[in-house]
């Protein structure tokens, strides 16, 4: 038997107030930790997909929409842009490399994107099976898209027009699956990739249905297509950071195109999201303070009942500091365990959410270890625990033994 064990016994002998204190602390810390984790996860996901893309060029419109539609594939594109214009940009001395993107069709809601092999390299995605496309109408399917649509190498399917399900089916051309990508936890998992020509072919054909049977005409049609060819957007990587200063402005001012820098737009978006997170954090901090208050009340009440007990311990030889340690330990145990439970529960919640909402979305393993901002929760809750124990501790230190003993 020692002081530590005694404070533990005291806590478990008052299960109701102990549970209340723990619950409040767990709730406060849990919410903060959950918000931090989600923020971290969203930011990581946003930043991850933006990697290697310095600038996106597309049709005029909202820059955020351009980024959302071309980088994350979660919004409609702003329109199409002529390949001719884009070709000029490619020659600019500050541009290191470019990747064209063309889309407008889907298969069961999964976007079919016409691009180059460089797009797959951008995501550092690797083939799980099959090979990359080598000609039009061959497609490589992202892991999620393949899994949900049950697509395998050798399968064929028809794309449908429009970015939402239920568009007109392009049934004259069918796509052949030649490869499946490994899961890489980014937007590419949900895409079906092909070359740009596939998109042109399907749509060029679509508009001039009757000309298809004539091979000569077809050839003519193709060259005609090259000239007026459109793509949806161009992803640009700069040679040096100098590009950020000059190119986006130049494009926006001198051409009919729109240039947007993903990094800026994402920071703007995170800033907007951050406001909501900040509010939730404030609420959680209030809950933590209330938990501190409940620790204080519970210690204060139990001390009132235990005054005689503490005096008795002094009679048995306990020093003032031993009693201080006893009371302080009870307060700190509550806050530390509350914090620990909070951090654990936020992870369980995240796990459950990711499990129920989207079986294919796996949170990065990193989120399950402590993230930096969370480390702050421990000193903060320790401080709250200390503050809550302060008055009861002072009372304990100054306990008047003779008076307590004679008053019972």
């Amino acid at each position, binding site marked *: *038997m*020692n002081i530590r064990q*005694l404070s533990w*016994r*005291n806590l478990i*002998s008052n299960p109701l107030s102990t549970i209340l204190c723990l619950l409040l602390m767990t709730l406060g810390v849990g919410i903060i930790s959950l918000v931090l984790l989600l923020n971290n996860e969203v930011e990581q996901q946003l930043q991850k997909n933006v990697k290697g893309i310095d600038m996106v060029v597309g049709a005029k419109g909202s820059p955020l929409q351009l980024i959302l539609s071309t980088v994350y594939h979660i919004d409609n594109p702003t329109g199409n842009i002529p390949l001719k214009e884009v070709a000029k940009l490619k020659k600019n001395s500050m541009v290191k490399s470019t990747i064209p993107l063309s889309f407008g069709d889907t298969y069961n809601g999964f976007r079919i994107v016409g691009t180059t092999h460089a797009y797959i390299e951008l995501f550092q995605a690797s083939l799980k099976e099959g090979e990359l496309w080598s000609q039009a109408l061959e497609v490589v399917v992202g892991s999620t898209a393949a899994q949900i649509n049950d697509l395998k190498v050798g399968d064929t399917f028809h794309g449908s027009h429009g970015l939402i399900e239920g568009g007109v089916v392009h049934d004259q051309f069918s796509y052949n699956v030649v490869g499946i990508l490994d899961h890489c936890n980014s937007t590419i998992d949900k895409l079906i990739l092909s070359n740009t020509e596939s998109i042109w072919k399907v749509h060029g054909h679509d508009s001039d249905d009757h000309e298809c049977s004539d091979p000569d005409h077809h050839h003519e049609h193709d060259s005609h297509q090259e000239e007026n060819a459109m793509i949806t957007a161009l992803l640009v990587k700069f040679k040096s950071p100098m590009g950020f200063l000059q190119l986006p402005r130049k494009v926006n001012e001198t051409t009919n195109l729109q240039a947007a820098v993903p990094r800026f737009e994402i920071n703007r978006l995170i800033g907007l999201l951050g406001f909501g997170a900040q509010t939730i954090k404030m609420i959680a901090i209030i809950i933590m303070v209330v938990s501190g208050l409940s620790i204080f009340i519970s210690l204060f009440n139990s001390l009132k009942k*235990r005054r*005689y*007990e503490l005096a*008795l*311990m*002094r*009679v*048995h*030889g*306990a*020093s*003032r500091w*031993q009693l201080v340690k006893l009371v302080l330990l009870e307060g700190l145990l509550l806050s530390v365990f509350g914090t620990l439970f909070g951090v654990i529960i936020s992870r369980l919640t995240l796990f459950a959410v990711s499990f129920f909402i989207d079986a294919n979305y796996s949170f990065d393993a990193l989120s399950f270890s402590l993230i930096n901002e969370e480390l702050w929760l421990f000193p903060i809750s320790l401080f709250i625990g200390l503050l809550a124990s302060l008055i009861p501790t002072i009372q304990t230190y100054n306990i008047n*033994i*003779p008076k307590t*003993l*004679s008053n*019972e």
Partner: protein
Amino acid sequence: MLKTQSIAFTYDGSHQFRFPDIQLQKGENLLVLGESGIGKTTLIQILAGLLHPMQGSVELNGTNFQDLSSKNLDLFRGKHIGMVFQRPHFVRNLSILDNLLLSLYLSKNKQDKKRATQLLEQIGLGDKLDSKPDQLSQGEQQRASIALAVIKNPDLILADEPTSSLDDTNCQKIANLLKEQAASTNAQLIIITHDQRLKSQFNKSITL
């Protein structure tokens, strides 16, 4: 041995308690009788080193309480003095056995579980080792509180009205138990009470 010299104490400055000098040898018992309000509890708290007398000195086994720092006095009391109160009190969240072990821990004695168990068996609480204090009857609680006072083999046992809330049978039992336990460790026993039933049991007594 215990030696007090011209102890006086006052709570408010106007009314002063003066206590007769006490000298007690090892193994000796003393009954201090007095009516309510005469300062019995004050005297016992001075003898325990819980209150500092305004005048005079208390010396136990050659150690003068005045020479000890408050921390050392706490420890000295824990090691050498056992106290029994009118109403028994325990650390309520611990079993009787753990209460004894805690008392040993606080007085920096070895936590001898075997001895604590033996002591409880000896005073008839062998089957209550793991009971919480609330689960004991009043007589049992008073016996347990004596065990709590004597577990660390104190040189001085101070009992403050140990029998006043008990019936005649239990009063007799407790008085005997106190004497037995004091004798077994050769401790000095001081009982302060207004309970006249005890007068016949002790040959040395003073009245305040």
